[in-house]
């Protein structure tokens, strides 16, 4: 029941804002191409649903694909960087230096290299997810409590056991921080990649609707995009709660403490 109370207030606030929005648009007769009323957006959403849904599938797959790729590469790489002196000294600084390159600025080049298909989209999503994930993974592995390692070493456990029972669990909170940042970045990455060059997906639809001054269709698309972003973010949070209940419970305790 507590979750109902937890979402009731934010939900109420959203409804209130929507109501004010609706009222204001009607009262001041704001033209639709400037700011459509929520009801108009909803009508547009249901009218264009098949097309928007089709675009959502494509964009969603790009997001998930790039995100998954970033997880699959950043985790082993971070492990290497954390436990191999050469990788820490040579590879990691290079990666960190590359991080400052504005990924979106070089995205048009991906189109030249990989065409307007999946690969250029996945590349941009991947890059936007990869760096925050890698940095947080490495920080997680490196941040292990030295005395915990002392205890673990006194048991004579081999490297394999140390990794799975000590190092990885201790790094998980930091790893999940990276995942959550990645989840947010992934949505941006997919839309921007579609802006730059594409013939399908929600980013493509956005450009088309915007070009035709179909404001309510634009808003409807943005709404669906946000829903995808939220879904992924909360999926990560849900997995986090299952994977590291000791950490999330601790965090929740603290935030409750702040309120009371």
């Amino acid at each position, binding site marked *: 029941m507590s979750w109902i109370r937890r979402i009731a207030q934010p939900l109420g606030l959203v409804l209130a804002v929507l109501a004010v929005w609706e009222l204001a648009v009607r009262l001041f007769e704001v033209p639709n191409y400037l700011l459509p009323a929520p009801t108009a957006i909803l009508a547009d959403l249901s009218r264009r649903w098949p097309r928007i849904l089709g675009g959502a599938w494509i964009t969603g797959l790009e997001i998930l694909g790039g995100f998954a790729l970033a997880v699959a590469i950043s985790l082993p790489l971070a492990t290497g960087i954390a436990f191999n002196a050469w990788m820490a000294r040579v590879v990691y600084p290079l990666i960190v230096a590359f991080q400052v390159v504005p990924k979106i600025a070089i995205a048009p080049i991906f189109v030249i290299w990989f065409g307007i298909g999946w690969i250029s989209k996945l590349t941009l999503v991947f890059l936007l997810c990869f760096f925050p994930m890698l940095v947080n993974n490495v920080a997680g592995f490196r941040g292990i409590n030295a005395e*915990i390692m*002392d205890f673990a*070493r*006194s048991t*004579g456990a081999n490297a394999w*056991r140390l990794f799975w029972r000590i190092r990885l669990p201790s790094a*998980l909170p930091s790893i999940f921080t990276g995942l959550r940042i990645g989840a947010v970045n992934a949505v941006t990455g997919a839309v921007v990649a579609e802006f730059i060059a594409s013939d399908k997906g929600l980013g493509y639809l956005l450009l088309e609707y915007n070009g035709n001054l179909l404001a309510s269709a634009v808003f409807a698309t943005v709404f669906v995009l946000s829903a995808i972003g939220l879904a992924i973010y909360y999926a990560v949070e849900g997995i986090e709660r299952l994977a590291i209940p*000791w950490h999330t*419970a601790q965090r929740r*305790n603290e935030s409750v403490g702040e309120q009371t």
Partner: protein
Amino acid sequence: MTGTLPIRLAGASKTFRRGAQTTEALTPIDIEIAPGEFFAVVGPSGCGKSTLLRMIAGLIPATSGTITVGAGTVTKPVTEVGIVFQSPVLLDWRTVLGNVLAQLELRGLDATSYEPQARRLLDAVGLKGFEDRYPFELSGGMRQRVAIVRALIHNPPVLLMDEPFGALDALTREQLRLDLEALWLAKPKTVVFITHSIDEAVLLADRVAVMSPRPGSIERLLTIDLPRPRGIAARQLPAFTKVVEEVTNLFLERGVLQATGKLSLG
């Protein structure tokens, strides 16, 4: 793991170096601890007690000299030990029971067969009902008690304890002292026990090493001839008062008196 092991330090010293900065923590130290001996170390804060313990455990190398535990020279972490660190060092991601069983899992032992024993020990230190809690749900003293159980669960031949009762209230502290003596009498093991409390050292140990301020050295070695089990009554014995006075005077001379453990938070 059974049997007990001797511990020998021969000219073992420690100097920490960081860049040009050096800290001499321990001057060369010679100690011979007999198998099955209860050996206590008292000394002022910062004199190198934890450093000494970590060197014996093979967690940091000695700058000079040699250390042997059992037959082997210590060059890497010694595994025939249970260690209680100065801070509890629990695994955040494991429950109380899970933390205790981690000792066995990491050693590749069958943890489930130790579970009844783990529950008994947790019960004995007053943690019944907390087996499934996570460390963040415990008080500092409760965490320290989990760490103590974790160091005992595999019945190691060597027990290294760094102010294990430091975070405990006086009553629990007295209780655990009695329990530790009883356990040690029942299951012989070589114990190195670091404490700020002179009383505690004298009540528990066969011998007490009194350390000088940094750079630490063994200022005096006292043999405690009190009958065992010492239990609660030993505090009244004249021999007890005499040794405590001797150590206290030594600290008074050095101006480092810490007659009560600074970590007894109440």
